[in-house]
């Protein structure tokens, strides 16, 4: 057990997990917000683009996106981000995680918008608020509160899904490292629990925090 901890860089692998999570969460939030704006816009073409994105990405396995990014996009099409192979794989992992989870961020935000009863918008208009005012003062605050819980779930899933990056990152990533340790040292429940515990530590507080936040901020209806 001590040998395993000494010989393998488990903390390093989790540091990669955290980096991937943070970078791709930011990316997913940006892309997802844009797609969500498309999907709720009053313009037909933009709505079609938005729902096409969501339906295509959401129904594709993340593993396929990961594998095709390096084996397909990078090797065959020559779309490389960095000349250095490990950096290239790292940034492709971030991009694919962001692209994949953006579809779920979009749906989370849209479900937040959908929690608003039509009466709220009608009331805002009828007391004479402009479009900008009713968005700022009435609609978006409620939409945001309704979206906290699903956004939290998406973030937790994203953290767990960073393990899929092992497809292209190999042992630099926690799932890849666990595979290597288990292959070399044999099955040790202790090692598995260390890795499992790492993810429990990363995700459990987030789950509790977003649940509490969404309960506290819930719009009373």
């Amino acid at each position, binding site marked *: 057990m001590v040998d395993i901890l000494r010989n393998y860089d488990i903390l390093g692998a989790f540091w990669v997990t955290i980096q991937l999570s943070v970078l791709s969460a930011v990316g997913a939030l940006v892309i997802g917000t844009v797609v969500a704006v498309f999907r709720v816009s009053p313009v037909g073409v933009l709505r079609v683009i938005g729902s096409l994105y969501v339906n295509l990405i959401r129904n594709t396995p993340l593993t396929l996106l990961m594998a095709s990014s390096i*084996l397909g996009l990078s090797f065959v099409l020559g779309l490389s981000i960095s000349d250095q192979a490990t950096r290239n794989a790292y940034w492709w992992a971030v991009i694919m995680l962001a692209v994949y989870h953006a579809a779920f961020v979009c749906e989370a935000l849209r479900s937040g918008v959908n929690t608003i009863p039509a009466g709220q918008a009608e009331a805002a208009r009828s007391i004479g608020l402009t479009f900008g005012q009713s968005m700022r003062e009435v609609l978006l605050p409620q939409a945001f509160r309704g979206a906290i*819980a699903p956004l939290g779930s998406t973030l937790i899933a994203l953290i767990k899904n960073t*393990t899929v990056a092992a497809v292209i990152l190999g042992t630099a990533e926690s799932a890849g490292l666990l595979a290597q340790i288990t292959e070399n040292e044999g*099955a040790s429940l202790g090692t598995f629990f260390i890795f499992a515990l790492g993810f429990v530590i990363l995700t459990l507080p987030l789950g509790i925090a977003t649940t509490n936040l969404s309960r506290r901020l819930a719009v009373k209806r």
Partner: protein
Amino acid sequence: MSAESVLFDAPGPKARLRHNVLTGVGVVLVLVIAWLVYGKMSETGQLESYLWTPYFTDPAVWTSYILPGLWATLKAAAISMVLAGVFGIAFGMGRLSESRPVRWVCSVVVEFFRSVPVLLMMVFFFFGFFARSTWLPSDLAPLAAVVLGLTLYNGSVIAELVRSGVHSLPKGQSEAGLSVGLTPSQTLRSIQLPQALRAMLPALIGQLVVVLKDTALGTIVLYPELLTQGGRTLGSAYANVIPAYIVVALIFIVINYSLTKVAGFVETWMKRRRRGGSSTTNAMPGAPGGTGAMPSSGIGGKNVQNLDPAGAGGGQLG
């Protein structure tokens, strides 16, 4: 009620002009993306016909790569879903049990497997146990690892569905059961569970999408599923990596999209039936459509988080 009817007023002349401009912008955006993709594909010779014709002319593409892969994917997904259902009902009922120790153990198990990534489990079971086991035929080892990983994770998600499904039943249901003399566990088994399971049906179909997508993780533990066979192996055998991945992605998208549609269909059908004068009108207040909280397209596994606002799982993305 659709999102845009909440956010936007009926457009006047100025707004209509703006919408037309934005429509133009959208069309241009699509054309630019299509042109970029086409440019890159033709520049690297990916549109050459010899890369694509095997799909139409060479039956071996289908019979020795794609169909066996698809079969392996469906097989793993089906076995996992059945076992996950059993696991989920058992542990879901365990969490609703009268006995505190049973409740506690089941809660710990469910919460643990929900928060550990599926891939970690698969990798550990495969390299740690199945790949080196002497009693398991070596060609079954990857399947066993995939099925066990998927069962534990999705079973835990289904256990949560069962629990929240039972909790969201009207209180009168269990009270009625108890008042006619059933024990609490009889009430759970014969009154609450059947109703909860029926209300869960759309969410279960949605979970099947998650299972199907996650079988692709099997490629890491050498399971010859659709991504391995139709993507990696076919791609290197015919030297058409890009077309291979595109075809595999399309197969996954078609299957999963249809499943999502079926889930939506089942849901509206059940809602219509419920409206036809049954006592469980509001059986699943958290379910999509129940409060208008979810658009109909948000089925997927999204039901999970709606049923369970605690949301510690977010499993649908798995």
